[in-house]
């Protein structure tokens, strides 16, 4: 690959970030896109049911559920990312994440697979304007001709735009 020295520098940084990103990912579907999150952040996967709505919350925060006695907030990533048809049926899946002790559920269209991604699969993200800041995307990967968007779910969920935590933390 021929790059200018400047780009090479950037490339080096990105490569080291990508190296860090190598590992096992849970892939899921949102609309027509494939996303991946680090498998170690995932606690469990369950169906969608009985969410208690909470007043005056943004639309993507569906409410809270009782997860074996813990009160866990549920976020619909489809609403947040404005993707796919928002339907809640028996196939709707909630991925329960354990982010440093905080438990959060995300609603997705479906869970696909668990993939092991090595460094060579990973590509850096070009500068884009999207619904979410690209700083939450650690990289892109190609698996069987399909593009996988790797999300730093911990960073995303604790960001102020998800409104899942008290503002004081930031």
């Amino acid at each position, binding site marked *: 690959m021929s790059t200018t020295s400047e780009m090479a520098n950037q490339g080096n940084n990105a490569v080291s970030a990508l190296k860090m990103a190598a590992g096992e990912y849970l892939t899921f579907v949102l609309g027509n896109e494939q996303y991946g999150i680090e498998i170690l952040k995932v606690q469990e996967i369950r169906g969608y049911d009985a969410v*208690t*709505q*909470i007043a005056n919350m943004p*639309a993507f925060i569906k409410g809270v559920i009782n997860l074996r006695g813990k*009160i*866990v*907030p549920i976020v619909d990533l489809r609403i947040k990312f404005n993707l796919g048809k928002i339907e809640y049926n028996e196939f709707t899946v909630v991925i329960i994440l354990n982010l440093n002790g905080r438990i959060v559920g995300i609603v997705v269209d479906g869970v696909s697979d668990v993939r092991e991604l090595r460094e060579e699969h990973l590509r850096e993200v070009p500068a884009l304007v999207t619904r979410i800041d690209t700083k939450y995307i650690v990289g892109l990967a190609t698996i069987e001709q399909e593009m996988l968007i790797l999300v730093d779910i911990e960073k995303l969920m604790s960001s102020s735009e998800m409104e899942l935590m008290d503002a004081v933390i930031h």
Partner: protein
Amino acid sequence: MTVDMSQFYEVFFDEAEELLAEAERLLLGIDVAAPDVEQLNAIFRAAHSIKGGAATFGFMDMAEITHVLENLLDKIRKQEMALTNEHVDAFLAAKDVIKMQLDGHRHGSDVDAEQVNDISATLKALSEGQAAVPVEAAPAATAPQASQDTAAQVSALTVSADEQAKGIQLYDVGLPEVTEKDLSNLKDELALLGEVADYQRADNRHALLVKTDSSADDIVSICSFIVDPDALVIQVSGTAPATEAVAAVAPAAPEETAAAPADPGYGFFDNGQAGKPEENSSGKPAVAEEMGYGLFATDGQDQQEEGYGFFAPFKPHPDAPKAQMIGDENAAAALSKATADTAATVPADAPAAPREERRAQARRESDKPSAQNTESSSIRVGIEKVDQLINLVGELVITQAMIEQRVNALDPVENEALINSVSQLTRNTRDLQESVMSIRMMPMDFVFSRFPRMVRDLAGKLGKKVEFVTNGASTELDKSLIERIVDPLTHLVRNSVDHGIEKPEIRRELGKSEIGTLTLSAAHKGGSIVIEVTDDGGGLNRDKILAKAASNGLPVSESMSDTEVFSLIFAPGFSTAEVVTDVSGRGVGMDVVKRNITAMGGNIEIRSALGYGTTISISLPLTLAILDGMSVSLDKSIYVVPLNLIIETLQPRAEDLKTVTGEGLMVHVRGEYLPIIALHALFNHPTEITDPTEGVLLILEADGKKSALFVDRLVGQQQVVIKSLETNFKRIPGVSGATIMGDGSVALILDVPAITQMGQTTNYVTGGSAFANQNYSNLKNHINA
């Protein structure tokens, strides 16, 4: 090989801290006019033990200061010096300094060297300055030569009729030939039982006079460590001053099991301590001879310091001596009182004595349960483990409720066995929950124990005389509540001393005792615990409060009940502006107190009678983890409202609903106009019921303001387990927490003060028309989705 001492540091630190706390407790409990020998000994032992430990571990600074302290204590203990308030103050200050040094060693915190030097100098000055002046007529004043005077002996150790009634006896213990060292040891040992004096009989044998409420058997068993018990001659000596009724018969002391002598002149005692190693079971001790003549006052040179005693220096024998020390407290107090009175020979003192005694007894009475509590065996468990256990049991209760609900839907005839088993499970689960909850419970003593010192210091500073009494210190309360009740209680106690109890001269003019009484009590009442701060001071002045409230612009009327008037002092800012003599300051921060108590789900109430005193009564739920709630519905959602904040619920009539400019909706209830807060509007939660006459109004009171919360329906009243939303989520305005209902769904618990606040700052009408904003329609979409 050297032993690494550092591994024992923690033990020493813990022990020293306990000893310091114990010494402080004793110091505060001591009656300066007539110090209890037993208490002085206990304080001395504490200082001695700390000194020993500190020296062993190389904390020379602590050893040094405790040494000085110990010297002074020793002099007082041996009555070479009278105890004064100055001493007690110095001891307390010394205790603080030692604690500071201890913390310095333990946590590396700063030690104020100047303070250390100061206190060391003070103690030295006290110990030297007065050492040369032995207190005259003190019962055991140093008198190396035998005075051969029966009168002196009588004045030294006598049993008054009063004391005999309490089971205190004067025993004359005739000893076989003993060495000086044994004699001194023996005296130390017997001093554990009561007061001891020795004298020499005509046949040059020593005899000891022991004044105690223990039985002769106890004396024998203690002496048997040092001398042959068979050689002892014990006689009950009925000697009393001529003015006292000699004939009074002493009943047996409560813990005494052996037959007590009823005849004050004679006593035959079986050598009843079977199984003592030294005993050679050769029958009874001889009948006592006549009492000897003179009294050798105790020479008292450093007996304790030599540390020969079996029970010395500070760890008493696990059973007998300790039990006796507790039991002895009253007796010992009375005894020291009596000796002091006799010695002083001031007749005017006599009438005061019984009252003082009762006072001291009352205080000690209330101390007892706590003393016993600390002795019970326990294990230390991390609080997070307990919390986890409580959470798990909370889950179990929910799961059990779910099973119960499902089972109730089954045919009761076909499934009889299952239904029976489930109802048994229900009972067991309840029991389990109760016992687990009780783990978190702590005695109120944890809170109460910090007040005697504060009251003492405050009273001293204000020039008031205050007797501090606690009741129900063993009442248990949830640990989290215990921690949160400290500040409000501190405030109330300080207020009572500062503003409630009058100065001695005023009290005298009013015909009250100069010494004011401040009582702190705790008791269970129903499902809550009631903590009361009572003073016998000036009380609240209704008229002044009303006048003040009126000038503050609060809505008042003459027809208000006393309770309503007194609760005016909880209004924010009340009485902060100016000093209103008898109520002055009572309102300062009272709003904070009230807010704290309400935040804990409790209530606060004042009862007061002008001129007689004030009682502030706080009632708290037993635990924070469970809430008595009213569940209400809004569309298909369930919300829980804390029951203690609901005054009433009603369905309004159309003519009671009023508006201002067609918007601000109010309800007219019993002459009051209350703002209606529509929950569905506040929470942007669409519902079919938008007309208050079709729904229900909950009249709520928060922060002293009433408002009407409009919901669809009342669902029912139940206890709910409070779950934090913040663990995994964030704080939500208007919601204080969540709970899990019997069907496994989550219900939100409303934060009533916040909702009242939100209701006041949000402008809306209860109809649907005003909600046509972007946010609302968004929400509506996703709720419908």
